[in-house]
């Protein structure tokens, strides 16, 4: 696993989330319940961007909604709630001196 810089805490300030391509991985970094998390931003359905919209709520639970076809994913688990067998990969995230790093293969 390589440790790669993906952004800074300043990138998170405005929307509590951002996405960026690093080494052919499109990763969505987001702040939720005070922790900073990373998941794949690529919808396994047709490849749309999970983090295009701000976080929405479905049945009082926070979800990401893919822009292209509205597939929704749990913010807490990355599991798809629209099509149950789909899931987003989680990335290990580390914050060092205001900089955000992800671990990727």
């Amino acid at each position, binding site marked *: *696993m390589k440790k790669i*810089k*993906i*952004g800074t805490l300043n*990138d998170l300030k405005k*929307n509590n*989330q*951002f*996405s*960026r*391509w*690093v080494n*052919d*991985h*499109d990763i969505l970094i987001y702040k939720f319940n005070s922790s900073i998390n990373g998941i*794949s*931003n*690529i*919808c*396994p*359905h*047709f*490849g*749309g*961007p999970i*983090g*295009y*919209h*701000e976080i*929405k709520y479905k049945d009082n639970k926070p979800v990401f*909604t*893919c*822009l*292209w*076809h*509205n*597939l*929704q994913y749990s913010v807490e688990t990355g599991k798809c709630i*629209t*099509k149950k067998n*789909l899931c987003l*990969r989680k990335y290990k995230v580390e914050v060092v001196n205001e900089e955000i790093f992800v671990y*990727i*293969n």
Partner: protein
Amino acid sequence: MTKTYLTSVSTAKTKFPKKLLIWNYWDHEHIVGTHFENYKKVVILYEDETTCHSDRWVKLPYLPFYIKSTDICKLVNNNRMEVMHTTLFSIIKCKQIFVFEENSLNECSVTRYDYLEVPKLFKFLQPVFDKMMKKWFLDVWEEDMPMRERRFKVWKLGFQDFKGIDYINNPDSEKKHNENRMYDLSLPIPKVTQTKENGSKKTFKRLFKRSKHIGYGLSDL
């Protein structure tokens, strides 16, 4: 009453293969996703590999309300698609012909020809119609462009529909970057987000009217 046609022609070039453009046009499910600000509902009444019959609730440029349009979309051949829109109790009929031209580098251009049948006395509306249709073409084109770019990008990284990318799903898997992977298309495109299904009839609804757009992502570091 004597009829005439209001006409308009719009054209644009891309760096994408023809099959990817056709995928975009035939992905009727994305209408209430990518274009959620202009479409609120799509009902696919019938669909096969060359035909799609649907009802769409659309807001056109300069009009402040939604209209229901019944559309029959036909892929006449690999280079030509024809769409007939009928609205307002079949009073308004608009035919669109899309012509796809792909060069030897697999870059495709699209030209759209629009024909709106009207009583002859409305011929004076020609400049307004032309302006409206060109704006519609451009608006939809620009909204779809990042979708095409992204689709092409993930495709070259090995994306498979309903699976994703192998090296992302499985960290132990080796990355196989293939710039020359030929774009493949099989119609009709499988659908999963319908809110209702009754035989071949499928209903797709937009989930929200407005949204704060975070966007497609930050630029490279």
